[in-house]
């Protein structure tokens, strides 16, 4: 094996009493694509911060090309060719592509004045390196997520990078964009640049990486070749638990349709959508970003009311023109972005659980019955397995998966008929994801009608009793998940199969 780009040896790091890293070692060769996986809080981010010089390690050392550092500053890390692409890309949405690209190098050269011609030249060289076609004068805030990421990648490449660390780079990308990103990663590899790819999406790990490292609670569990890894092992290393794939089999499907949608449409977003949902069913809706799937969900929940077609609930035609009217018909909606749309993060877990059933736990005068409040909170924390020892803690102390459980509890406490979930497990750990799937399947068995919107294809296949595919604002196929697999499904999504 040739000289490694980076070697991390037995690094330990504690924050107060919390041992974030308990002696982790890692070695990456030039041009290697290495995947770092692990559940939230396993120490991945701390490890990255140690490598990039943000946190000094308590003990252990880091080697760059044979040079040993027991402590490293961010500048030294950059000088040694380490570049981190953060999840938020660290960009300036209000400025042009050009400025976003040149600031780092201009500041490194300690320049005081701006020369727009030089800016343009540097920026052009940066985008040319990966053949990224973009208007240098465009505002970065107006670009798509994928393009923003490319800007961040171009910027990282300007510093003679030898190791690029990408922190969950595919979270907000569509399948197509992920493929484009992978192509770029492969071409970087050809230039001898190593990539440390942080992800907990199984399929991506298999597709892109040659070697992998899995961490759990501050320890390195295993490092190895990806070719020796399979789904079962991967999940086991990540969580320390074994799961069986629970395929959803509807049990108590009611004959009467619960929700019927007839030629539903909203000008400019979707049109002529038809489907039926029965009690006990889980309907999976998938499609590319911009196919109208999110807008459809928002219309069913009254956020952007539909302007064409009919909605029938339990056979009765209804008008859903506001969130209030959707809630009156016992519809609940778990949004795509639970952090900004679904939860009051700084408020307590308990407050978040009871927020949509306040009228049920208060007396006639509108004063909240504390005893009822407490028992409701206890009931849901237990029922959904929210990992907390004190429901009075703020909601943002929970991990993504547990936050999602709180969002679920918030709706379930209202005795819903229909629950719509948009991306129910985005950014959620494998373990919690499994729990959430189990909860949803059980809810369906208990007679709830559930709609899941997701571009996580295994999730759709595993949990739905019926799948509809949206494209260009309308339904292009209705399928039985038993008859198809992931490849088929994505073919339908891309529209290659009509």
């Amino acid at each position: 094996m040739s000289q490694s780009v980076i070697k991390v040896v037995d690094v330990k790091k504690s924050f107060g009493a919390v041992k974030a890293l308990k002696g982790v070692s890692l070695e990456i060769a030039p041009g290697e694509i290495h995947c770092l996986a692990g559940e939230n809080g396993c120490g991945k981010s701390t490890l990255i911060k140690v490598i990039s010089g943000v946190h000094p390690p308590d003990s252990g050392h880091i080697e760059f090309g044979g040079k040993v550092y027991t402590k490293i500053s961010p500048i030294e890390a950059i000088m040694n060719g380490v570049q981190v692409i953060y999840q938020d890309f660290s960009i300036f949405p209000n400025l042009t592509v050009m400025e976003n690209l040149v600031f780092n190098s201009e500041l490194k050269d300690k320049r005081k004045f701006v020369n727009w011609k030089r800016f343009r030249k540097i920026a052009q060289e940066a985008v040319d390196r990966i053949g990224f076609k973009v208007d240098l004068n465009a505002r970065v805030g107006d670009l798509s997520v994928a393009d923003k990421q490319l800007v961040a990648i171009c910027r990282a490449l300007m510093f003679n990078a030898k190791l690029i660390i990408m922190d969950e780079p595919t979270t907000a990308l569509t399948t197509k964009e992920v493929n484009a990103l992978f192509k770029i990663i492969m071409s970087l590899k050809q230039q001898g640049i190593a990539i440390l790819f942080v992800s907990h999406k199984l399929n991506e790990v298999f597709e892109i990486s040659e070697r992998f490292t899995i961490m759990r609670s501050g320890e390195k569990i295993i490092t190895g070749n990806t070719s020796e890894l399979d789904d079962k092992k991967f999940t086991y290393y990540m969580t320390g638990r074994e799961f069986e794939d629970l395929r959803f089999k509807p049990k108590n499907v009611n004959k009467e349709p619960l929700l019927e949608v007839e030629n539903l449409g909203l000008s400019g977003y979707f049109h002529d959508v038809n489907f039926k949902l029965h009690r006990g069913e889980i309907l999976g809706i998938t499609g590319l970003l911009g196919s109208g799937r999110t807008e459809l969900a928002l219309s069913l929940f009254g956020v952007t009311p539909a302007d064409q077609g009919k909605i029938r609930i339990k056979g009765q035609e209804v008008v859903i023109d506001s969130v209030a009217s959707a809630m009156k018909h016992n519809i609940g909606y778990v949004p795509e972005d639970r952090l900004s749309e679904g939860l009051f993060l700084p408020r307590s877990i308990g407050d978040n659980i009871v927020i949509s059933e306040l009228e049920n736990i208060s007396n006639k005068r509108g004063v909240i019955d504390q005893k009822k409040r407490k028992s409701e909170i206890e009931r849901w924390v237990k029922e959904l397995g929210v990992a907390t020892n004190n429901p009075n803690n703020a909601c943002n102390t929970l991990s993504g998966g547990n936050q999602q459980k709180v969002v679920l509890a918030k709706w379930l406490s209202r005795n819903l008929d229909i629950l719509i979930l948009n991306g129910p497990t985005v950014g959620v750990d494998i373990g919690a994801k499994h729990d959430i799937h189990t909860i949803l399947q059980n809810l369906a068995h208990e007679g709830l009608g559930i709609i899941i919107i997701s571009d996580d294809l295994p999730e759709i296949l595993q949990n739905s009793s019926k799948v509809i595919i949206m494209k260009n604002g309308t339904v292009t196929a209705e399928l039985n998940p038993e008859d198809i697999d992931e490849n088929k499904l994505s073919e339908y999504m891309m529209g290659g199969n009509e």
Partner: protein
Amino acid sequence: MEKKMKKLLSKHEFYISLVIVLLCAMIEIRSGQFFTPNNLVDLGSALIVPGLFAIGAFMVIVSGGIDVSFPALASLSVYTTTRILTDIDYKGGILLPIVMVLAFGALLGAFNGFFIAKLKLPTMIITLGTSSVFKGIMQGVLNSTQIPNIPEGMKKFGNDALFVALNKESGLTSKMPIAFLILIVAIGLAYFVLRYTMFGRALFAIGGNESSAYRAGFNVERTKFILYVVVGAVSSLAGLIRVCMMGQCHPTNMLGMEMMIIAGVVLGGVAITGGDGTLTGCMLGTILIVMVQNSLILLGIPTYWQGFFLGTLIIVGTGISAMQVLRNSKRLVRKKSEEESS
């Protein structure tokens, strides 16, 4: 051509210019007095002080903060300067007062800057506090009173005319004060700093995303500190010019101007959330506010309607830009879905 047109139509400055032209036309039609030389000169002269204040307010808003202390800060440094010079019976020219007021302004600005940059507290909260502190020092510690006779040099500076305009019909004359040059120079300097120095670009970067700015290697603390020192100095200079032009120092005369100035800046299309806006827009917004304040009289509208009109302007002005943002984002979504499906 079409592309150019489209670009023009997407610019906030275009709309605000349109509003200014319409307002000019309206006043001219009603009164026939708008495009008289003396009225235009009066407007220019009324623009000096708000214009300088607006430059400072603009830079702060671009960097993501809202400074509400600059009138109090300017009042304190001008009052202190004038008091000292009157007490020692100063007979010299304008140079010393300018140097003194800049120094006091920078010092008070550094006080703001220290809290905002080092303690990382929101600008608005800090400046609400310091604005009261400045007022308190002036009215309590210094026991401020009106100074009816300011030093000769200052009075002369306020009275000296760059040129005099005459309205041939009415025989009225108006002087354009020398200080107008200071505004011109300040605008030029601000334009250069914001566009051609890393300090200027750092303000935009910090306003856009502070943690990104830090990670990119900007010295965020130092940039903010310098910003508030500069804003303190510029605002105090504006205060001095106002005192000179009035020929007397009235300590509380400027207090309360902050809302009008900030409104002008926002009206000019500068995003109150930081990072976005142009100096041109900021100046146009300020001109509009000054015009409304000065010219409603020409329309025969009683002065107490001023507040009403200013308020309406602000709502309409910011409403238009908000609608544009909304439309743009919708277009983006549609464009994206078209790309996806192609």
